[in-house]
């Protein structure tokens, strides 16, 4: 018996079965197995942050050395630009005042005004084509929390869609990127009553940073360059978040037209992202307060 227990084939088989059981258990909704990672993450995350910071510093130092002359010239150009921009700023301040007046007058609805925006830097990126979840430095301690089955949109600095939050721990969150094959979002052509469609990640397009477009409405006229935004259907993503542009349309099967989409955002170039969290609780609190007031009165 002891011989079997210490045999390598037995150790490999037993450990593999145990790990497979763990993987399956982790797929059950509400599985507590995620907490097993916490002590390892507590050690590994600060080290990784240090390595990233050191790498960035080295990269910046090298860039400073090699780009010295270019930077000097750029500095001169920037000084000229600053002078121009200061003039424009004065002009724009007046325009902004006029915009606020007009916005109030015409009751223009700000599409994203019902969302809190949390900024966070990207901690770690994909490890290979299957280990592709991204980690950002914002979690429960920063005020972000997600109920089971909920999710939040994630956008870049230009409000272009990056992905969505799928897991939140105390200090960080996991993001499912737009190009991941498990990602899909209801979209439309960026025009009034634009034709609807579904944008999804695709296993074969992922490595090229592209998405696939399916379920395209019959009335849709797609061509390369057509701008696609979220439609707001499904409730998770608000309407109007820019997603990307069509690069290719495949009409070889008229019954199932598909297209390829180039997302606006390239995760490789991102350092910071923004999580959009709706004011659900605040609205609920306001409602309940209103109810009490009405009952009281």
């Amino acid at each position: 018996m002891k011989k079997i227990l210490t045999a390598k084939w037995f150790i490999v088989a037993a450990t593999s079965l145990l790990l497979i059981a763990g993987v399956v258990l982790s797929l059950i909704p509400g599985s507590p197995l995620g907490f097993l990672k916490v002590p390892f993450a507590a050690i590994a995350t600060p080290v990784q942050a240090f390595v990233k910071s050191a790498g960035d510093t080295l990269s910046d130092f090298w860039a400073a050395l090699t780009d010295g002359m270019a930077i000097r010239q750029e500095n001169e150009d920037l000084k000229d630009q600053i002078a121009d921009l200061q003039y424009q700023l004065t002009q724009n301040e007046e325009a902004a005042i006029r915009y606020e007046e007009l916005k109030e007058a015409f009751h223009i609805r700000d599409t994203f005004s019902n969302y809190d925006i949390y900024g966070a830097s990207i901690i770690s990126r994909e490890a290979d084509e299957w280990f592709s979840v991204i980690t950002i430095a914002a979690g429960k301690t920063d005020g972000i929390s997600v109920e089971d089955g909920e999710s939040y949109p994630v956008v870049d600095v230009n409000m272009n869609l990056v992905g969505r939050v799928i897991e939140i721990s105390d200090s960080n969150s996991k993001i499912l990127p737009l190009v991941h094959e498990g990602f899909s979002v209801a979209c439309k052509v960026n025009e009034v009553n634009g034709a609807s469609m579904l944008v999804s990640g695709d296993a074969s397009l992922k490595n090229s940073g592209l998405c696939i477009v399916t379920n395209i409405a019959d009335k849709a006229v797609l061509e390369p360059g057509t701008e696609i935004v979220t439609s707001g259907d499904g409730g998770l993503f608000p309407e109007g978040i820019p997603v990307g542009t069509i690069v290719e349309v495949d009409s070889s099967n008229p019954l199932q037209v598909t297209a390829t989409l180039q997302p606006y955002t390239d995760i490789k170039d991102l350092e910071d992202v923004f999580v959009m969290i709706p004011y659900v609780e605040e609205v609920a609190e306001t409602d309940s307060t209103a109810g009490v007031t009405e009952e009281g009165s």
Partner: protein
Amino acid sequence: MSMSITIRKVILYTVYILLFASLQVSFPDAISFRGQIADLMFVFVVLTGYFFGFADGAIIGLLTGVVRDCFSSPAVVGLDGKVQVTVGIGALVLFLAGAFGSAFFTKKLHRSIPFAFLAVAAATLIYKVIGHAVSFFWIKVLGNGFYSIGIGEMILDSILPQLMLNIIATLPLLLLLRFLGPYKLGSVTDKKDDVIEAYGENSWFRI
């Protein structure tokens, strides 16, 4: 094994695990080609098994895999149809990679440096083929979805670039492991081969 050797081993392995994992997930673009990323963690674990035997390969594989799961787990469609972050796939993959490395032609080739490249190439090939097979099975068969990668794309855009990157990454990692440690140069090879022979780990892929 003396205390100083053990301490040196633990410290160096800890540094390697955290360093390679951090580099891979912090600067993937610096080590990528055609959408694939040089898998420093995977190469490190295979080489650890190849040079230092089953116990080192399996344990270091398991620990590196857990760190990999912490940083960048796979997300798959769960049993309720929703996309979920998994726990344990990284640990499973790298544990098996370490065990594979330890069983790859070890005694016959005396853990030679040239054949370390072959060990990494073989492990990478097996990982990618099984990875695609499992993805196909999970998406197409269990999830009734559409697995869109054809055989040609699989080879040209996934397997070959990954093979090339991992083989290139083998050189620096191999030099590091062989000449810096976890064991002092010359202190382990002979002793380890005795151990390997005693445990019967002296033939091609025999665990």
